[in-house]
């Protein structure tokens, strides 16, 4: 077929059109597969981790804050909110000054050293795997924020705000950051043993839960406990807070993969499944035992499930998650009701009963349901059997319980001697909001 070029200009336009078409066709050819390079920034991973960080911060402010605030008496509602908000601020500063370095600065077995104090070496373009190190650092910071905030529940309604701040500053330095390093830091001794703790069953929950128990015992029972009726003043807040914890926990668990991939997807799925199973587990067992299902019960059950699936979220499959969630919902119910009342300590908001017990149940069952035969992702390190994995899990659980129990007790005892950690009887009776903060949570008559 003859192409007719009416004049010179048309011919030149036509040639450019052909060249353009050729380039277009070239662009359609499949490009050779690019190998994954760990030292290149992956924007998908980074986008997810930026989001996950925000979700985990949201878990503390206002998720956990509201969860706890609703459970105390109205005269103390602000004190709990204040404690969580202040802890968030304080832990942020300490983390960037030196605690990040202790946790992630180096390769020792027990501590990470001081090479990253003041975030030395962490710049705009510094990478940690496929994400900026700034994002990794901030993500981990939100864990260092929520762990001490959890302890608030154990000493609620009777601890001095000043003593609490100092306790938390010391605690994050010599308890949280080291344990974090043992499990997640380079060269950490528990990580090296092959412990499976994906998002912090030991580092966060058993740790905070045990510190809470110690604090509850050392501070002593609230005035009037247990004879005086101290019901939650606003279960609406509590349920709202539990809901925010549930949603935010996707950042906590799925974010612990530090990437946007299949493992993160499974982590999100098992988180949802375990939480629902636990909420139902607590609700049904309470219904059977006491005759009515309660809002406080279902909210507590959900949190118990979230806690238990935390260590398991990178290693178990959906059916394992169902089992873990249900076990935690039922187990934590008994720990927070029957066992707590039998032993008589005043863990105001059941930090031990839910976080420590749920964390222990989760840690041990992670060792079981990680098995590929049970739908899991496989054992950690060089481990080859369920019993081998469970043994390592138990070592982690025990080491955490002992270390945090002993060190937290020492810090509290010393502080009590130096400055006193409990408010006066009058302050406790009036309520902490007015006594320690000069404010009222509810001014209805206006």
């Amino acid at each position, binding site marked *: 077929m003859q192409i007719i070029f009416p004049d010179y200009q048309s011919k030149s336009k036509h040639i450019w059109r052909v060249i353009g078409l050729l380039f277009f066709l070239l662009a359609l050819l499949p490009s050779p597969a690019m190998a994954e390079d760990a030292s290149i920034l992956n924007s998908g991973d980074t986008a997810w981790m930026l989001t996950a960080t925000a979700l985990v911060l949201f878990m503390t402010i206002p998720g956990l804050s509201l969860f706890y605030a609703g459970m105390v008496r109205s005269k103390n509602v602000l004190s709990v909110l204040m404690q969580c908000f202040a802890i968030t601020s304080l832990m942020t500063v300490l983390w960037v000054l030196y605690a990040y370095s202790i946790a992630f600065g180096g390769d020792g077995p027990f501590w990470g050293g001081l090479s990253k104090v003041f975030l030395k070496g962490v710049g705009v373009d510094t990478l940690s795997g496929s994400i900026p190190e700034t994002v990794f650092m901030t993500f981990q910071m939100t864990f260092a924020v929520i762990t001490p905030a959890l302890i608030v529940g154990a000493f609620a309604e009777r601890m001095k705000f000043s003593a609490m701040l100092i306790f938390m500053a010391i605690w994050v330095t010599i308890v949280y950051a080291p344990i974090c390093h043992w499990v997640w830091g380079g060269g950490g001794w528990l990580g090296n043993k092959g412990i499976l703790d994906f998002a912090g069953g030991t580092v966060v929950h058993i740790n905070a839960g045990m510190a809470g128990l110690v604090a509850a015992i050392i501070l002593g029972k609230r005035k009037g406990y247990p004879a005086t009726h101290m*019901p939650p003043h606003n279960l609406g807040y509590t349920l709202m807070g539990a809901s925010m914890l549930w949603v935010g926990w996707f950042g906590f668990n799925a974010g612990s993969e530090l990437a946007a991939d299949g493992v993160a997807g499974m982590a999100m799925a098992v988180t949802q499944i375990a939480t629902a199973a636990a909420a139902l587990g607590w609700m049904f067992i309470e219904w059977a035992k006491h005759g009515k299902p309660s809002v406080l*019960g279902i909210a*507590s059950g959900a949190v118990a499930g979230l806690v238990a699936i935390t260590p398991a979220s990178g290693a178990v499959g959906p059916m394992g998650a169902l089992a873990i969630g249900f076990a935690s919902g039922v187990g934590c119910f008994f720990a927070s009701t*029957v066992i707590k*009342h039998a032993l008589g300590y005043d863990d105001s908001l059941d930090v031990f009963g839910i976080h420590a017990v749920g964390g222990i149940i989760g840690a041990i069952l992670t060792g079981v349901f990680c098995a590929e035969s049970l739908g899991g992702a496989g054992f950690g390190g060089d481990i080859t059997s369920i019993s081998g994995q469970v043994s390592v899990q138990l070592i982690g659980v025990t080491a955490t319980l002992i270390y945090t129990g002993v060190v937290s007790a020492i810090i509290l005892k010393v502080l009590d001697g130096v400055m006193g950690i409990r408010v006066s009887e009058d302050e406790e009776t009036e309520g902490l909001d007015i006594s320690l903060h000069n404010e009222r949570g509810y001014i209805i008559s206006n």
Partner: protein
Amino acid sequence: MKKIEAVIKPFKLDEVKDKLNEIGIQGITVTEVKGFGRQKGHTELYRGAEYVVDFLPKIKMEIVIADDRLDEVVSTITKAAQTGRIGDGKIFISNIEDTIRIRTAERGEDAI
């Protein structure tokens, strides 16, 4: 002048108020109170800790009226507030020495 204090079940407030309106009672004061008489409380349960709660929410109405209207008002309140079950409440009657309308400084029965 007499003062009537009536402690009634909260859900009966609208009915009593409407019936009093119908017989021309001009004003009432209402407070939310809690109390118990022979009506026992109930139990509440929080994480396995069971408590007996004695007090129940009630409404207290205070009305000041002329002496000659006493019986009419008492029977209106009683009929409207009654359910026939324990916990219906009580009415207390006391003497009032004087009443003053703040806006106009009127005193006595004119101020009611």
